[in-house]
């Protein structure tokens, strides 16, 4: 079996399973992203390569990967490792005004940079056409230009591979579940990496139920709103589930069903809603607009959150028990959907202990 570009092509790219994480890009001259797609430019005949090894959709043993990242096996099957969970929001208005919810991610990354915990952050920025791409932010102002979301995955990890790097920087990465999984795989890969992944010192994960394919979604927005600039996109929490679009000076609400067709196929087999391979993960809070859920997973993540609390960068509150239950249920539901979708696939990318699959599938969906 080829574990290089040929394998990646046949098992991922040609199957429409690319998650658009960016881990395989800027490693070699054979792959490039263009308008939201990873494109193979030439054939590469190596039997083993980093593109295949780093990809979050080539075969991965999640249990082994957990051991390598967290020092223990995959035990916390509902939402991954949890040290504590809080509700939080940024106190500075500059974050809250631009942010999707509570502005916690931007505030934390700016803090980590300001305090010298990291010297660079890998974030996702959108251009005027809403096309997301990875960028390296080194100061607070650069963090702010990346705030907000377009619900489109954007090859953010390419920025990590591409640099440029001085060689000493400690690096923080903000990523979606597929991206933090790829990052964990990059770290764990036995191949010679030639990337600064070993200097990645902070991983902030984002909650994600699915992401959209850029080309299809951009074409849809263009057909609806023409040349009007899209100023903001967000999706209201359940039960409404509406896409809210600020196009020019107009405000529109679109039922989610109208855009479901643009969901990337690779999202349907994703088992992770809460970015489990992170130091801490951030998402929305059901029924509490303007607040974020923060799941702290590692000591490093805990340190950063405490620093943010003590410096009054974030305001935190205890997480309501019922919301936590709901969140776990949603997370398990995504895993169940993913496992069901995987059943229909000829080749599965994840390896999970059989008893864990049983345990997951037995969990009662709400």
């Amino acid at each position, binding site marked *: 079996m080829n574990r290089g570009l040929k394998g990646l092509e046949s098992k991922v790219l040609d199957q429409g399973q690319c998650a658009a994480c960016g881990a395989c890009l800027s490693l*070699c001259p054979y792959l490039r992203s263009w308008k939201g797609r990873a494109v193979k430019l030439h054939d590469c005949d190596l039997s083993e390569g980093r593109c295949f090894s780093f990809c979050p959709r080539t075969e991965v043993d999640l249990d082994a990967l957990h051991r390598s990242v967290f020092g223990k096996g995959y035990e916390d099957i509902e939402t991954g490792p949890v040290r504590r969970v809080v509700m939080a929001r940024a106190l500075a208005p500059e974050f809250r005004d631009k942010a999707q919810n509570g502005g916690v991610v931007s505030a934390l990354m700016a803090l980590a940079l300001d305090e010298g915990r990291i010297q660079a952050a890998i974030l996702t920025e959108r251009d005027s056409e809403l096309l997301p791409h990875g960028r390296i932010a080194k100061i607070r102002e650069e963090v702010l230009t990346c705030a907000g979301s377009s619900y489109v995955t954007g090859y953010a990890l390419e920025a990590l591979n591409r640099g440029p790097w001085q060689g000493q920087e400690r690096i923080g990465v903000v990523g979606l579940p597929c991206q933090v999984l790829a990052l964990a795989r990059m770290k764990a890969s036995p191949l010679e990496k030639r990337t600064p992944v070993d200097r990645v010192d902070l991983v902030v994960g984002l909650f994600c139920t699915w992401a959209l394919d850029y080309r299809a979604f951009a074409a849809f927005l263009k057909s609806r709103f023409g040349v009007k600039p899209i100023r903001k996109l967000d999706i209201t929490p359940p039960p409404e589930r509406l896409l809210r679009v600020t196009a020019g000076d107009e405000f529109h609400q679109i039922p989610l069903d109208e855009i479901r067709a643009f969901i990337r196929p690779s999202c349907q087999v994703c088992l992770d809603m809460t970015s489990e391979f992170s130091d801490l993960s951030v998402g929305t809070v059901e029924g509490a607009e303007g607040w974020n859920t923060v799941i702290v997973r590692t000591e490093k993540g805990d340190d950063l959150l405490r620093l943010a609390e003590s410096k009054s960068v974030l305001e935190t509150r205890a997480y309501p028990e019922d919301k936590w239950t709901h969140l776990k249920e949603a997370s398990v539901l995504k895993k169940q959907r993913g496992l069901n979708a995987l059943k229909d696939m000829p080749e599965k990318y994840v390896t999970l202990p059989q008893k864990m699959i049983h345990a997951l599938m037995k969990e009662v969906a709400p």
Partner: protein
Amino acid sequence: MSLIAQDAPGKTILLMGNEAIARGALEAGVKVCAAYPGNPSSEIIGSLSSAAGIMDLHVEWSVNEKVAMEVVAAASFAGLRGLCSMKQNGLNVAADFLLNLNLTGTQGGLVVVVADDPGGISSTNEEDSRIFAKIGNLPLLEPATFQEAKDMTRWAFGLSEDLRLPVMVRSVTRVSHARGNVRLDALPRPATRARFDTSRPRLAFPPLPSHKALLQKIDRAKAMAETSPYNLYRGPEKPELLLITSGSGWMYSLEAVINLGVQDRVGLLKLGTTWPLPAALVLKHMKQVERIVFVEEVDPFLENNVKELFAQHCMDVGLKRFYGKASGTVPSAGEITPEIVTSALQKMLNVSYKPRPQDYAAKAHEAAAELVPARSLGFCAGCPHRATYWAVKRALALDGREGFVLGDIGCYSLGMGPSGFSQMKTLHAMGSGAGLAAGFGQFERFGLSQPVLAVCGDSTFYHAAMPALVNARYNGSNFVLLLLDNSATAMTGFQPHPGTGRTATGKEAPVLDLKGICESLGAKVKVADPFDVAGTTEAMLELLEDKEGVKVLILKRECALVRSKRQKKLFQVEVNKERCLGETCGCNRLCTRVFKCPGLYWDRATGKAGIDEAICTGCGVCAEICPASAIRKEVA
């Protein structure tokens, strides 16, 4: 000093067949010569242009073969002798005019030289141009030796003036491109004054009386063929086998007969006037034998015409067995060789003959391998076309809609193979890429969702792509034309063209600006340098996304061979061996495995790439594409 313009009657010199043809024209007092380059005919005008000054000729590279023939017909109408030359495909282009010119007739001697390319060694097709002589009722001559190439060309002018018809001279690669001894004759310097006789208009309409007159002329040509000194017979009066041949077949047949020692058994009838046939001569020899074999290159032209003659006279000549292409005795495609003729005769005559061993070719190849570096059919080192196709491949992959490139004939046709990354998907006639694109570009309404690209060279653009562009604009087609402007007609030997600012004789000429022409046709035009791979890719992507109308991307970069004659390397290029990633993940030999410029080599021992100083032309493109920045270029 022009080789062919030596005023030395009686002297014997070594000439290429095409030079001998040109010399024959000079000895006939030719005044006007025109052609579009095309191998194997290009050296005819090439050598005449070097004699233009000393012999006071008008020699031109015309924009295409039809125009070349029209220019030469004008000379004829004005009472001057004129020659136009072309390859077999060129005659197809000129045929429309030629098949009207046969009706209006000529004044000054007009000779059309067509050099066929049996086997299609440097052509898109394998075609026998002789059939046009039959279609057009034109006298056809086929020189078999270098001396004949000169002498028959000279003779053709007189024949043309006797009949008031264009005369075709058909050569083939091994006559045009080989060299042999030629004894020179006198060089006249006629002082003819050009004048068009308005009382004798040249009007093809109404065709009926002209056609009747033409048939009378060809009847006279038949009579002339009977006494032509270029038809000869060698052999016993009553041979066992009659071999009828023409052109290159003559030497091959002679060699075969001598090698087999069957001179007293085989009669060789070599025909120089192959249309119309010298019927009486052929019938006379036919009568003596039962078995007749034909040796000729490409189509069974002689074979079929002799069979036609036989059908008419079979009661007089008796039953015959015919051997040739129809019987499978001689192959119907590809070049004829002495070996082919020898083995055909050997079987028919039952002579024991030890043919070349089966493994001869393999052994010869093996022996030569040490002396000749291995080269695949591909672009030269530093060729801008390689860089262009690299950008095409990237742009089409990134665009992701299965776009494709429609091509035509030129150096850039190699884009169909590995050195052009197999990007070119169609190959036919001059300008056909643009014409096909004009069609494809209108099929969105039938569901075609792939972007359409066409490619053509600068010389090809003037030759035949311009009408396609006009058509595309007029009919609302949508495609991108990649106009590869390398400032030369490179494939045929760097002849100048309307964009180069020079004529065939080296005189200054106005430059017909490609960008201006395309813009005046309503195309959106961009210009890029193919050596700027990133910029070229970006320009292509932008034009591919533009769904409106005809877009032209002019890729301007001089042919590497033309440039290297004038100036040194652009860049000194070096590989930093420490940075070179070689076969490892991150590169996997992009430069020597995928890009494959011959100026790069792969050093198996060190596992690193290197630059072959002797071959590298210093274009610097490999430095652009190296993923590890291991290839460095410095201004030379």
